[in-house]
């Protein structure tokens, strides 16, 4: 009888692993297929039934990508855009988050609620007016113009504020007693102490900026200025390469930084996203 009890448990655990693993395959296979196919010729990659071992093994797809001058530019543009966004967010969100958390000033709570409420406005409502505004500023087709919109993301401000709230009040009181004015306190105390949250903001904003599509599509006009996702979809729609494998290779190049970042940091990223879901 005891054996029966244990057996049903073992069967159940095996079933659980089976189901979970099948889905893991479902989520991972597109990446694996793409990775493998990026080293194949299109002739081989489009064979049916699908093959898994590139023969011949070729770097031709990647070479084609980089032979296209635009492709390298796209990578640089994405990097520049992500860089500006990350720096902007770190700087201004930490300032705002600190101020909302620890300083008292008139309208503080009202302003913060107003910022949070912004999250409810869908991007499609504001994109056209913002386009017009940026156009009037003469900053269309300019990475910096594009960056203006997401320079200080509300979710970054929220994250920083929550973090600063979680720090003990005593640290800031001690700074005050030591004669530190609020602005000095920001640079000497809040900023150094804020490293974990700043790190989180940097990572999330990098991911968001690197993967951004609608914004760059609308605000960037000439192909030299495209970011990677826009560029790749442009290349696809213009059939810049007669075969599809370079697009696959290009997709992998685009996805690589985010995947690597995620694999390295997955514990923190998942925890962070879960925490913000709890608050939401």
């Amino acid at each position, binding site marked *: 009888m005891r054996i029966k009890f244990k057996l049903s448990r073992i069967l159940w655990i095996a079933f659980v692993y089976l189901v979970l693993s099948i889905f*893991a395959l479902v*989520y991972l296979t*597109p990446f694996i297929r793409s990775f493998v196919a990026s080293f194949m010729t299109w002739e081989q990659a489009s064979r049916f039934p699908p093959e898994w071992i590139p023969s011949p093994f070729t770097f031709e797809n990647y070479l084609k990508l980089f032979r296209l001058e635009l492709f390298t530019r796209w990578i640089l543009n994405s990097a520049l855009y992500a860089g500006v966004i990350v720096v902007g967010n770190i700087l201004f969100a930490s300032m705002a988050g600190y101020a909302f958390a620890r300083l008292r000033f008139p309208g503080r709570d009202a302003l913060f609620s107003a910022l949070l409420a912004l999250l409810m406005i869908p991007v499609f409502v504001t994109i056209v007016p913002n386009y017009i505004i940026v156009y009037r500023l003469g900053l269309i087709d300019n990475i910096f113009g594009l960056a203006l919109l997401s320079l200080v993301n509300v979710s970054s401000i929220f994250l920083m504020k929550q973090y600063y709230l979680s720090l003990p009040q005593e640290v800031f009181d001690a700074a005050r007693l030591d004669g530190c004015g609020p602005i000095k306190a920001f640079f000497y105390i809040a900023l150094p102490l804020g490293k974990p949250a700043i790190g989180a903001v940097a990572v999330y904003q990098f991911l968001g900026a690197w993967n951004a599509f609608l914004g760059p599509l609308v605000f960037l006009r000439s192909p030299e200025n495209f970011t990677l996702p826009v560029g790749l979809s442009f290349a696809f729609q213009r059939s810049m390469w007669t075969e599809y494998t370079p697009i696959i290779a290009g997709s992998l190049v685009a996805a690589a930084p985010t995947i690597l970042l995620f694999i390295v940091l997955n514990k923190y990223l*998942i925890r962070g996203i879960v925490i913000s879901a709890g608050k939401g």
Partner: protein
Amino acid sequence: MEAAWVSRPNNKINFFSHINSFLKQKYNQLMTMRRSREALSGLLLVSIAVAFNMFFGYFAALFAVYLSFFKWDYLGPMQFAGLYNYQVLFNDLVRGFNGAPYFLAPFFTGLRNILLYTAIVVPTQTILAMILAAFANQKIKGVQFYKVSYFLPAVTCPVIVSLIFIWLFMKYGFINYMLQFIAPGFAPDWINDKNYLLYAIAIVAIWGTSGHFMVSFLAAMQSIPRDIYEAAMLDGAGSIRRFIYITVPMLKPMIIYVVVMGLIGTLQMFDLAWVMAGPSGGPGGSGYTMALDIYKEAFINLRPGVAAAKSMFLFSLIFISTYIFQKKFKVMPR
């Protein structure tokens, strides 16, 4: 508080009380100075964040509302048009409702497609995420590997993902190959067949986001105290009944979050459709969405007024649907 008392001659008393009130005065001055200093610093620190967001957020939104009542082509002057743009929108919907083909009623087509898409994606990704989380919540080792695998699609760019899936969905692509084992003979040309394109896009969406929500559900499940399950066990509830009566009701807040986030995301879906269906929405407009239509209106037809009106419609749709869902779901019986 009783201070130590000491007897002093009169003049000395005056001296000490004088110093006392002087100190008090300085302290108060310092405090108010400090308070206003704090207020100033606070305002200064939030200024850029608030300015940017107010400007590109509220001002833009208000401008959008304003714009929806005007006719404009970006170049000339803006002409007040009253409800004209909304009329255009309305006519489109009416035409579409009466069966006009998609190029005569694009907005209606976009609306219909996106509603169908939402109806497929949101329930599926929510339920799938919950079930997977329930499986992952069993006491097994190696959960982190599964969490990472499931979450990976969520950190990749949807456009990139679509590009990869276009290849997988090709007539002789990987997906049709795998389908052979489950449903032999069923191998549609997903991308080019107007009956299947929307489903292909829906599958990509579910693939991309269900992992993210699974992780959210898993965290919520793990925060349910173990002894509540033990009490339920002793009360005679087997594992399925525990899931129905304990897990699911206690997950309600997270379910609301997942569905609301899901609705907001699906109703304004753009990236996937743009790549997989193309800017015009693919064969027979089957991949056309409201978001695509707004984009087209603003940047191809060059009618920002109409685009603004349509975006108002979209906003209302999102707002109403999330509001209704929250209201109904909260009241739902346990």
